[in-house]
């Protein structure tokens, strides 16, 4: 089959690899119909995540049709399912607490050691990510093996478009959990750093969870325009002093909750970020947490910090004293996708959540390598890319024209 494979920093290729097979009783095999490139795939593309191996198949946002099932799978051939990026067993202590991304059994024994050493505990498993998280092949491919298929995949009712439900695999629940972690109260102003797909869903979710006002921060005009379309007030950090702006816009109090949807590769030329970038390129550090630092300084006293952005290791210049003196609360973590899929599918069906507005490109899988580069280099134009393995090369459509110009 065809699959998108990683070979090194800024080197991904579409090539032929063997088809997956059923290995365990609870497995299923899907024929992938839609798969997206995620912002966190860029961390892999940029070489920020250790323990990826040349030849690994990437992709953790995907859905498809069940074509084969193991003896203990509860799925049936022909069903259309969306698969959570977190591989969770449903049986362990963590899964029973619905902390699915912390599942103790998904990560095989052989790949658990490294993360146990790094993090103190073995991490949960995910599709198409580093071997720290299990080393399972991802779904940017024609077929994929899904372990614990009786727990993760959610069956999609007939007649619902792939585009409407695909993001149940990661970014929609991630944006939702980000807003939930902000513990939003009546009258709250929520500030969101990063208007990528997760940020945009966090904005939408924050309003759904009762935010009075959302202020979004980015520097790409088109992404800010999408945030505005979702009802947020917007700040281009190249244009305004973000800290002063947030204070002024909240009567001096500051945002009640701040959400860092940026993660380990902050943009911008702030002096701390330049130092972090140099360190990252010299392999002296992994994090560029400029956005998080700014969010903590911006947050009101006694406020909440929600951190869906991905980080991988040790950060320095962390405003620890500011965090303590202001009495902030931090909530974070990989998304417990399985906890949210059913509820969010309901909201999509009711038309309460718009999931397609950010898709700028729908392309065949064969163009994936080139699209990784576009996703990396042209973030203003490429706001979300969906790959369709079944799509003929000539039939690709670009939806850029439908995106509103910045206000």
């Amino acid at each position: 089959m065809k699959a998108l494979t990683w070979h090194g920093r800024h080197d991904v290729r579409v090539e032929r690899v063997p088809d997956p097979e059923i290995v365990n009783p609870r497995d299923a095999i899907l024929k992938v119909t839609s798969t997206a490139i995620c912002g966190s795939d860029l961390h892999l593309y940029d070489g920020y995540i250790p323990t990826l191996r040349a030849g690994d198949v990437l992709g953790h946002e995907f859905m498809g049709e069940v074509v084969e099932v193991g003896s203990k799978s509860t799925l049936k051939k022909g069903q259309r399912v969306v698969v959570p990026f977190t591989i969770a067993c449903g049986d362990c202590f963590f899964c029973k607490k619905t902390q699915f991304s912390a599942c103790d059994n998904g990560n095989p024994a052989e790949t658990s050691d490294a993360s146990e050493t790094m993090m103190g505990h073995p991490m949960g498993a995910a599709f198409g990510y580093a071997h720290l998280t299990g080393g399972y092949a991802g779904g940017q491919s024609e077929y994929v093996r899904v372990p614990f298929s009786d727990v993760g995949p959610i069956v999609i009712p007939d007649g619902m478009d792939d585009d409407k439900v695909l993001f149940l695999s990661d970014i929609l629940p991630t944006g939702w959990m980000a807003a939930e972690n902000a513990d939003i109260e009546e009258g709250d102003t929520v500030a969101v750093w990063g208007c990528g797909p997760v940020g945009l869903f966090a904005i939408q979710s924050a309003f759904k969870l009762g935010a009075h006002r959302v202020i979004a921060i980015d520097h790409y005009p088109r992404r800010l325009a999408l945030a505005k379309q979702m009802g947020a007030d917007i700040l281009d950090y190249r244009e305004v002093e973000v800290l002063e702006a947030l204070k002024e816009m909240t009567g001096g109090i500051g945002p009640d909750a701040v959400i860092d949807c940026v993660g380990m590769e902050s943009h911008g030329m702030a002096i701390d970020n330049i130092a972090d970038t140099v360190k990252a390129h010299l392999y002296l550090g992994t994090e560029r947490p400029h956005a998080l630092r700014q969010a903590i300084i911006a947050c009101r006293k006694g406020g909440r910090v929600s951190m869906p952005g991905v980080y991988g290791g040790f950060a320095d210049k962390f405003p620890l004293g500011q965090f303590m003196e202001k009495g902030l609360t931090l909530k974070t973590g990989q998304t417990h996708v399985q906890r949210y899929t059913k509820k969010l599918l309901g909201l999509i069906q009711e038309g309460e959540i718009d999931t397609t507005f950010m898709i700028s490109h729908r392309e065949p899988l064969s163009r994936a390598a080139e699209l990784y580069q576009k996703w990396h280099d042209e973030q203003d134009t490429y706001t979300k890319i969906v790959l369709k393995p079944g799509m003929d090369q000539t039939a690709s459509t670009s939806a850029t024209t439908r995106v509103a110009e910045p206000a």
Partner: protein
Amino acid sequence: MAHHKNEHDAVTDEVTRLNERAVRDAEDHGPARDNRRRVGQVDESDRVRIQDDDEGHGQRGGNRTLIGLGLGLATAGAAAFFFARAKAEDQGRGGPKISDAPDHVLRGQALKNSRNQEDGRALVGRTVTVGKPASELYQVWRSFERFPEFMDNVREIRKLDDKRSEWLIEAPGGATVKVLTRIVEEVPGKTIAWVSEPDSQIETEGRVEFADAPPGRGTYVRLLIRYTPPAGTLGRMVAKVMQREPQVQARRDLRRFKQLMETGEVPVNASPSARKSESPTEARI
């Protein structure tokens, strides 16, 4: 495009600023040299400049040596101080241990004391929580035959009688080693302990303990293994492989046991990759 340009501009500005500062710093050293050159012979300016440069380097070099020496001494002093402190910490108070922790997490003098009582043999151990009742887990462990399902290097277990069994253990190069074990202690639902019989190629001793976890959380399962230097070339090879990281072995075997008991299968990342040497049905690391 405009944004990229901005970023580059900002970098250029910063670099220019730093360069300017470097130039200013260099100029600060300049005047003395220039004055001296003025009183020296103008027509031999080249030679004089070379001399002056040498002198400048010599002076700065001397300062650097002093600073280097000072820093070195300070570092060595600090290191000596902290190593001494760390060593004192490892020595402990002496006397019997007071911590409520198992022996396989001991360190420093307390570890030495414990090993002296155990003929110097290394003890490795690991505890996991398994979300099943102790009685059920005990049954699986007591039957021994299911070990190959979760113990990586155990190929087969043959039961000889109720207490004794023969283990086929994988050795490097595809060979196998036989180990005869005998159960020396069993408390239903709580403990199973075994030792290798004298004529085994590896001398090993193991113990598994089951204790109730807090309500609703299942069972704490603790695996303890003790190894002693083996006899024979093959035995040495196996022991080398197993002893190098017996801790890793215990950790992985127990994790697989937990996975098998809780999910009914041992998760494996077997899946397609572009690496020719791999099969999509076999585990990879």
